[in-house]
């Protein structure tokens, strides 16, 4: 029997090789892939996020943890699809126009993926129209916007407007984040939610899906 706690530890330590091999072994033994995700990988990422908040982890540790989780997810995702498990939701995510900061956005994307969402990452400096086109094309349920500059926050508003203009606003929930962004700003521009960290972004996305 695989010691599944090892999976938790491998993700937390950012050991992609180990998380992959434990995942493979567990699956070979018939463990439910969904259980691996929800009981071991997500708690590991939550713990990584918690350590980041209190200053025990820094960006490199978060990024290798996310990478380890992704390595396991690559094995698990096709199995879930084969089982007919639907993604919790379909997310289109990107950093808004004029803004090139992507570390936070990448972490949010990784966490959402771990949380069972299908994630389409459009990258950085993404124009409002591009968000709108991708939302339609991917039949998105959530559009997630990241901005790190006060000067590019208005691009978030422009993106909300572009989604309206393209007629997709009512089919998606919009969530926003990034260091200078606030709940107040989210309310102002008519976004559906804001969260301040990658870990809480998953909770937010789930809540928005349920609403």
């Amino acid at each position: 029997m695989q010691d599944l706690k090892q999976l938790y530890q491998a993700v937390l330590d950012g050991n992609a090789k180990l998380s992959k091999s434990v995942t493979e072994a567990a699956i070979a033994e018939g463990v439910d892939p969904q259980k691996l995700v929800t009981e071991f990988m997500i708690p590991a990422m939550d713990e990584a996020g918690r350590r980041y908040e209190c200053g025990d982890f820094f960006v490199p540790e978060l990024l290798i943890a996310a990478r380890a989780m992704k390595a396991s997810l690559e094995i698990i995702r096709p199995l879930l699809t084969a089982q007919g498990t639907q993604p919790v939701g379909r997310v289109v995510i990107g950093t808004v126009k004029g803004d090139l900061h992507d570390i936070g956005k990448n972490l949010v994307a990784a966490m959402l993926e771990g949380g069972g969402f299908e994630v389409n990452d459009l990258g950085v400096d993404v124009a409002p129209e591009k968000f709108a086109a991708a939302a339609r094309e991917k039949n998105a349920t959530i559009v997630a916007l990241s901005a790190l500059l006060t000067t590019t926050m208005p691009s978030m508003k422009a993106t909300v407007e572009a989604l309206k203009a393209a007629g997709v606003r009512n089919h998606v929930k919009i969530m926003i984040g990034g260091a200078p962004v606030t709940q107040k700003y989210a309310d102002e521009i008519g976004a559906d939610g804001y969260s301040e960290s990658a870990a809480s972004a998953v909770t937010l996305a789930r809540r928005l899906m349920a609403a």
Partner: protein
Amino acid sequence: MNSRERVLAMLAGEPVDQLVLMPITMMFAADVIGAQYRDYALDHRVLVEAQIAVAEKYHFDYVSCISDPAREAADCGANIQLFDNQPPGLDEQRALLADKTALAKLKIPDPLGGGRMTDRVQAAALFKTKAGQSKFIEGWIEGPCAQAADLRGINSLMTDFFDDPAFVRELFEFVLEMELKFARVQIEAGADIIGVGDAAASLVGPALYEEFVLPFEKRMVDGLHALGTRVRLHICGNTRRILKGMGSLGCEIVDLDLAPLDEARRQMGNQILLGNLNPVRILRDGTTADVTHAIAECHRQAGARFIVGAGCEVPRGTPENNLLALAAYARSHAP
């Protein structure tokens, strides 16, 4: 005492008549003369005109060559994204060292070869003719961590620390040599101090900072001192956990952004500290009273070895009166 004399005296540990005032301005400065930021970043004549206009209008003691972190990477051959009214950026998807083996073939660009580095050297020279008697002139280079991130892609560099420490050191060596060459020509052109921007260093935490970044920052600072210049270290973000290391480098000035000044003072001894008025919350969004109150508190925490400035770049859209209030505090107080 004019501005230049004031800064020189302050850095030499001699008495000064007023607090020294050295806030970083970039996009704000371009806006002051109504220039597009693309022109500010690409044409030293625009940068120099804007810096001098800001320094005069707001009584700054210095002018600076800083504009964006992409100059060196551009001359190395990296893909640069230009924006009309924003700083040029680097595209990580197409980073110069997306493939690590490219480092072996990478050549240090000639800083006088006519590229974006040369434009900065020309800025230093033009400052010297236009304001060399009255203002203190700051040149600028990127620190090891920031420049390595610009060449390799910041997300990749962050994981390289764990995956391939030897590569990181090799890359830092390349950066160190390139930046010291770049600094030398800026000093020869007229820079009185070299600012070292190492933004990404605030992301790595104390263990990686001490193991990888600090030794190269130290060699960079020592190298700059050997060139006969002074050093201002600027690491944006939260540097609380690496203050001690930053204080051990022997820089003439250390900037603080999100780390508390009182803690920095405790950990860095007699070091001259610059900052750390919150750029967005106080300087841009606060009232003039907020600005005065906050900078007085910075001064109180830092004590006499203190230079007035914001934690990071003065944001575009900062009200004129707020920056004037900051200047008024400096002009009406002695250290």
